[in-house]
């Protein structure tokens, strides 16, 4: 009788029962690809060699830490995820994972990832990962996201830390090169997200998130995209003349920054009537280019590090 009651209860909860994939979705796997790739570049571009298995573990723990912060973000933002078209199918607003489950999952993985990264590599890397999770969850998600239109600018730091953590995991320190990789992602984040905000326009309005498009208007957002893209281009091309740069990186940076500047200029010149006429074609193209932009820049840094093994990378 007891068994029957238990089974009936469990079966009744079937519509809200999470599958393995739902827990995986809490880790924001698409964001994780960026975290994994940039952290890997930071680790491999560092001058100190790392044992392959320790390197693999370091990247895994950084990815898990990034995923944990994503789960905690989904726990806190469940209310606004439920009203945004882009996020309404996430496990919590869809009712497949309970908010408290996501909180416990995120906290457990946060502690696990930081401790194990510290044990596998060094405590500077573990501490930086802990700070990144804190920054993303507390500073960005809980504080800035709902209080300032500069949320994306400052919050972008959280996504910029992985290459620095990868570098710290290999070397046990943070150098100028690690800071440059941090700055590259940090400066890239605002134009990337503001382009998204331009064509996902009703989402942030509905959720009451003070995106720049909502608080300062869409014209101001277009200006901001152009200004940040100019600053980013200067930084990205300048990085080509440092220790992590080289001819390959510089060639990639010149081509992609020319395209990125062209895209930002086109967005700046357009008005809402133009954008609505072609369903935000230019803004969407700029957003897609921004994804290629970051992967290609970090890919070029990785290529320079790889060529250095054969005495070819860099300017030496």
């Amino acid at each position, binding site marked *: 009788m007891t*068994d*029957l009651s238990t*089974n*009936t209860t*469990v*079966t009744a909860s*079937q519509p809200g*029962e*999470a*599958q*393995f*994939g739902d827990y995986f979705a809490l880790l924001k796997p698409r964001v994780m690809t960026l975290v994994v790739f940039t952290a890997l570049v930071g680790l491999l571009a560092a001058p100190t060699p790392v*044992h392959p*298995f*320790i390197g693999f*573990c370091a990247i*895994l723990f950084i990815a898990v830490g990034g995923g944990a912060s994503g789960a905690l973000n989904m726990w806190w933002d469940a209310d606004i995820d439920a009203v945004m078209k882009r996020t309404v199918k996430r496990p919590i607003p869809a009712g497949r994972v309970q908010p408290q489950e996501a909180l416990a999952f995120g906290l457990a993985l946060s502690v696990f990832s930081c401790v194990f990264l510290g*044990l*596998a590599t060094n405590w500077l890397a573990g501490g930086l990962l802990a700070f990144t999770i804190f920054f993303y969850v507390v500073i960005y998600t809980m504080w800035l996201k709902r209080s300032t239109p500069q949320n994306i600018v400052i919050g972008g730091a959280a996504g910029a830390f992985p290459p620095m953590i990868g570098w710290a995991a290999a070397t046990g320190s943070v150098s100028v090169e690690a800071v440059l990789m941090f700055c590259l992602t940090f400066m890239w984040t605002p134009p990337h997200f503001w382009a998204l905000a331009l064509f996902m326009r009703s989402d942030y309005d509905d959720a009451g998130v003070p995106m720049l498009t909502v608080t300062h208007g869409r014209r101001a957002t277009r200006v901001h995209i152009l200004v940040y893209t100019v600053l980013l281009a200067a930084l990205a091309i300048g990085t080509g003349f440092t220790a992590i740069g080289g001819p390959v990186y510089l060639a990639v940076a010149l081509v992609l920054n020319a395209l990125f500047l062209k895209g930002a200029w086109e967005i700046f010149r357009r008005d809402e009537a133009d954008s609505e006429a072609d369903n935000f074609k230019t803004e969407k193209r700029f957003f897609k280019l921004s994804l290629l932009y970051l992967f290609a820049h970090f890919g070029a840094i990785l290529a320079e590090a790889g060529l250095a093994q054969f005495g070819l990378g860099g300017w030496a």
Partner: protein
Amino acid sequence: MSIAKQHELHKRRFGRNVGLGLVLAAFIVIVFGMTVVKVTNGNFSAALQGNAQVQNGN
């Protein structure tokens, strides 16, 4: 009724249980691998040879 319900429950949770099992197995492999690399300072073969020399009394 209870048998059918139980069977359905097992079937429904199969994917989740297999996933958790794989994660736990991966965790064991990672901890074991990290221990081996740390204990041998990344040089597994040299560590084995050293152990053999100790056993041979060298």
